[in-house]
């Protein structure tokens, strides 16, 4: 759902290693115990975050129980219509027929679990979601006909991953690579061009998508308007892959256009700030090769940020992008999410949210340990208590 924002390294500065330099406690407990305590508190806070976030999503997706009223109306209408169409029911006396309709409505409500109050049900939703027991969708079904939320999501996951993982990874590495290059050639023509182009990142990917469709699909007719493969899908694996590639060009290009200049600019500025540090000047004075300076004095201290961004890039790829997928008719998770909302299909909405919440929590959790590995200034456990 990252349709609208370009990542800026400074925004995603990790919160944990803020007080890296705090003085060691006088009576330091053993390192292992400290680590265990830190890990535990961190896990508990993250878990609480996930629980509250998912519960809020459940409440919003049900509009605090309002969706139940919509459902009830739909059930009543469906059963009444079915009764009106059935010959047998028409021949019954009115009172009996109405009774039968009521019984059927009750049965249907029971089937969907709507006979219990919403508060109770929302807690069941929550425990189910948190245990990844995603259950059955209320209306949607996968293309293979399954109503399991798990199969619905798994069916769409590959198409989202193939597009967004490719595009995001491409953009990420290209941005970091070019930024490093530009920070060396600071002030050159290409550097100025990138700086001038960076406001282009204020527009989201779908916006460029429309233009790309206009040029390459509508006008030049060399690339498809949308979709993932040709219809009917080619039998041959190689042809299938080629067709997939052809369909991927425009959405990838759209995403790239909207992110690349902004992120190159952000990284470049970031690297430039780090390369004006005193220790870099010192290294230059010592006569180290530019390559050594770059690797040991610029890349090393910026590594935590690069890793944070990389991790966030990876998990944001998981969700796809609702509008880009809509514009390109791409059968991914973003569109699934949008369709689920349109059908008030809470299990699907909650399913996608909870998986994302877990991924985010796991990433944030792991990042703390990764920082400790890459940044000698950060010691796990010391930064955990507010200074």
């Amino acid at each position, binding site marked *: 759902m990252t349709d609208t924002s370009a990542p800026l390294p400074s925004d995603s500065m990790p919160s944990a290693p803020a007080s890296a330099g705090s003085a060691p406690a006088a009576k330091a407990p053993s390192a292992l115990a400290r680590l265990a305590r830190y890990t535990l508190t961190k896990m508990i806070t993250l878990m609480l975050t*996930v629980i509250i*976030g998912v519960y809020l*999503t459940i409440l919003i997706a049900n509009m605090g129980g309002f969706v139940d009223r919509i459902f009830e109306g739909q059930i009543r209408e469906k059963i009444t219509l079915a009764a009106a169409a059935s010959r047998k029911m028409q021949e019954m006396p009115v009172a009996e027929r109405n009774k039968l309709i009521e019984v059927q409505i009750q049965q249907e409500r029971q089937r969907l679990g709507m006979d219990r109050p919403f508060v109770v049900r929302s807690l069941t939703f929550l425990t189910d979601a948190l245990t990844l027991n995603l259950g059955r969708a209320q209306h949607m079904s996968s293309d293979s006909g399954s109503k399991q939320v798990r199969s619905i999501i798994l069916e769409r996951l590959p198409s989202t991953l193939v597009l967004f993982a490719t595009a995001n990874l491409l953009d990420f590495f290209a941005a970091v690579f070019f930024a490093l290059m530009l920070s060396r050639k600071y002030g050159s023509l290409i550097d100025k061009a990138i700086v001038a182009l960076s*406001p282009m990142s204020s527009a989201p990917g779908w916006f460029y998508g*429309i233009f790309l469709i206009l040029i390459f699909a*509508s006008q030049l007719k060399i690339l498809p*308007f949308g979709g993932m493969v040709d219809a009917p899908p080619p039998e041959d694996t190689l042809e299938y892959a080629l067709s997939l590639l052809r369909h991927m060009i425009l959405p990838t290009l759209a995403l790239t256009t909207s992110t690349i200049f902004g992120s190159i600019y952000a990284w470049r500025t970031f690297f430039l700030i780090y390369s004006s540090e005193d220790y870099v000047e010192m290294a230059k004075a010592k006569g180290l090769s530019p390559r050594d300076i770059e690797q040991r004095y610029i890349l090393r201290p910026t590594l935590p940020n690069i890793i944070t961004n990389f991790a966030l890039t990876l998990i944001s790829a998981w969700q796809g992008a609702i509008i880009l997928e809509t514009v390109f008719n791409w059968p991914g998770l973003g569109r699934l999410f949008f369709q689920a909302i349109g059908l008030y299909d809470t299990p699907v909405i909650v399913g996608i*949210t909870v998986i994302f919440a877990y991924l*985010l929590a796991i990433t944030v959790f792991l990042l703390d340990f990764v920082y400790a590995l890459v940044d000698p200034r950060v010691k796990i456990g010391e930064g955990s208590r507010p200074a």
Partner: protein
Amino acid sequence: MKTLRDLSRYPSAIAGLVIVAALVALAIYTVIAIPYDEAIRLWRGGENIWAENPKNAQPVWVNWFSAVKRPETMVFNSLDATESGPITKKREAISAKTTDIIISFPFDYAYDTFPQDLTIFFTSTFEKKQPYVNVTWITPDGQEIGLGEFSIDRTYSFRIPQENKLKRKFKDVPVEQALFTNAPVKDTHPLQGRYELRVQALVFEENADVDAKFVLYGQVHGLAGTDHRRRDLSISLLWGTPIALAFGLLAALGTTVLTMIIAAVGVWYGGWIDELIQRFTEINMVLPFLPILIMVGTLYNRSIWLMLGVSILLSIFSGSIKGYRSIFLQIKESPYIEAARAYGAGNLRVVFVYLIPRIIPVLIPALVSIIPSFVFLEASLAVLGLGDPVLPTWGKMINDANDNGALFQGLYYWVIEPSALLMLTGLAFAMLGFSLDRIFNPRLRGL
């Protein structure tokens, strides 16, 4: 003042400022020229308001770039008839009650393509007996083609290309083309010159009268073109401006100012308040932003102001709260705060008078830079079909265009016009924010 002088050193800032000023001027002009109610009436109006506009017509300026001149819409009304012409209306008494009314619409046709449609709207006054009308088409080379004879009601529209008799007569050549060529073959050039449409009406009562309005629907219309409902797109282009600006500015202002206040309060009071704010920010990261907006739009109300409120609410506890927090943490320790405390400044006074003003240099660039994302957010929602149900906006134009296959049909103007304005707005604020960032953040200066 100093800021302005600093800004003038950045060409991108000047460009941004000029565009923003132009957009603001356009927005003010729009709100004055087409009042809100009028805009909504026009935008929601159906065929009765837009009957004289062609459908899906390109803007007039495509003619400037093309050797092929497409016709513009021409409207002739017999109410404008004068003695000297060009439109004339003559009455000839045939008997005591019967009168022959002859209305003539001569016009010059000097275009390279055929009109989209030809329609005559009749209005007549009579008591019992309907007038009888005979319509004739006269081409520049003197051919006379009978278009039809029929009795008319008090109002009657005669859509010439839809006449079955004419369709049969011209076989596979569309009627509106056949009437403009002397040798009816498919895909030829229209014959240029003076045409005439003659309406001869017989009225059978003393006070009866017939008037006709002849509309030749062009292929181009107005500065912005028209959409599938014949609406003039300039209305939504114009009205999209104040809406986009208001949405972007209000959302950016609300988000940044509230975020800043919350961060300041959290840092100053510390303890559980700070802790709560931080946890809230983390929870907010888990919540899916766009899906929640979509859910609110789908389930509650698609009003743009509700969307604005929800967007602000969801963006307050964003990642930037951590950025502000770290700045406030540094400021909190400054001696001048201690001095303020010493002479007895209260908590709120410290927060609002001593803490927050210090951060405004960081706030202004952030505020300006965040505007484009909200402008595009409104468009994004509209593209998903969740635009405000009554207001004409740029996003809704793109949505309409997408729904009606504008890109497939080659109606590019319909997509390009709102997109260009969106891009212009986004770029202007982005460039401005970018320069402001450099002016206010000395670390970035020169980078």
